[in-house]
């Protein structure tokens, strides 16, 4: 499976090396070449310097053959835009988009993006632990 990952932060680098170790073909895109240091030194995937909201950059990362696209930069809007480019322009079958802002996450989920919101997920886990399981899942702080 070919996977393009945008954003080589802790999450991006971890997902990338995991997929590579499982035999998948991975390209990681980041605007900052220093970010690739987070990848293991023997990383066998591709690294591309550039922004994932640029169609040409995504093309050079091999998005046209990708089965999945993962947008995990630190910018919500960047992730949202790149995910929509992957979905509507390149018709990538699986598009995963991280959005920190729960309000924005809710809106784009309704619009059909597959979204991950660390804010609600982590808050819910913490609250579960503090108050008790099941009582607060999905609610806002």
């Amino acid at each position, binding site marked *: 499976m070919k996977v393009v990952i945008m954003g080589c932060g802790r999450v991006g680098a971890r997902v990338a090396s995991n997929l590579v170790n499982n035999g998948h073909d991975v390209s990681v895109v980041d605007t900052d070449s220093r970010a690739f240091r987070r990848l293991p030194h023997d990383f066998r995937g591709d690294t591309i310097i550039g922004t994932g909201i640029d169609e040409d950059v995504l093309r050079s990362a091999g998005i046209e053959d990708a089965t999945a696209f993962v947008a995990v930069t630190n910018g919500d809007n*960047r992730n949202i*835009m790149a995910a*929509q480019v992957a979905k509507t322009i390149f018709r990538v079958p699986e598009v995963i988009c991280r959005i920190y802002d729960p309000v924005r996450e809710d*809106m784009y989920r*309704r619009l059909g993006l597959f979204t991950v919101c660390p804010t609600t997920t982590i808050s819910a886990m913490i609250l579960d632990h503090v108050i008790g399981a099941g009582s607060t899942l999905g609610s806002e702080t």
Partner: protein
Amino acid sequence: MYVILVGGGKVGYYLTKQLLEEGHEVLLIERNAAKVENFVERFGAVALAGDGAEAATLASAGAARADVVIAVTGDDEDNLVVCQTARQKFHVQKTIARVNNPKNEQLFRLLGVDVTVSQTNFILNLIEQSIPDRPFLHLMSLRHADLAIVEARVSGTSVVAHKTIGEIDLPMDCVIAAISRGTHVFVPSGTTQLEPGDDVIAVTHPREEDELRRLLCEECYP
């Protein structure tokens, strides 16, 4: 009209100034508090510090009663999300985005932004039009109809040279609206014969532009 502007750079500044002079109600949203202060000092209480892509900011700006939301930050991703949020959450009738990468114009419209403005494309078009003897010119786009007006010069080697309009196999969704020959401009009929050197003004679907170019002035783009 109530206009919400997002992005307090130079474009935002001059838009605010101009719109206020024209008597519109304007609110500018800008992340940088120092810039907001400058706006307030200069124009009065027309600026709000905050992230225009955040629904809460748009809500406190009264986006639900805005006639138009215009996103003119220097980042395309921010402009896109501002417009999509305005449309989805506040049902703003008209959204306008500045597009920095000209390739994003089409994408933005596909994703529901009503109007896109690309300075890069605008300047490129001006340059194209001011180069003499360019054999194929894109004159303007009629966005809502998804049509373009183009001008092309018929070359001597073109397959359509010396043929009548009726004989030409024009692409679908394309009509020849006018012909400029020497100092004479006229509307052709089916029996009008095209001559090398004619400037043809055609209305066409953008996807037929290349085909039309091949047909009329083949050797200019080998």
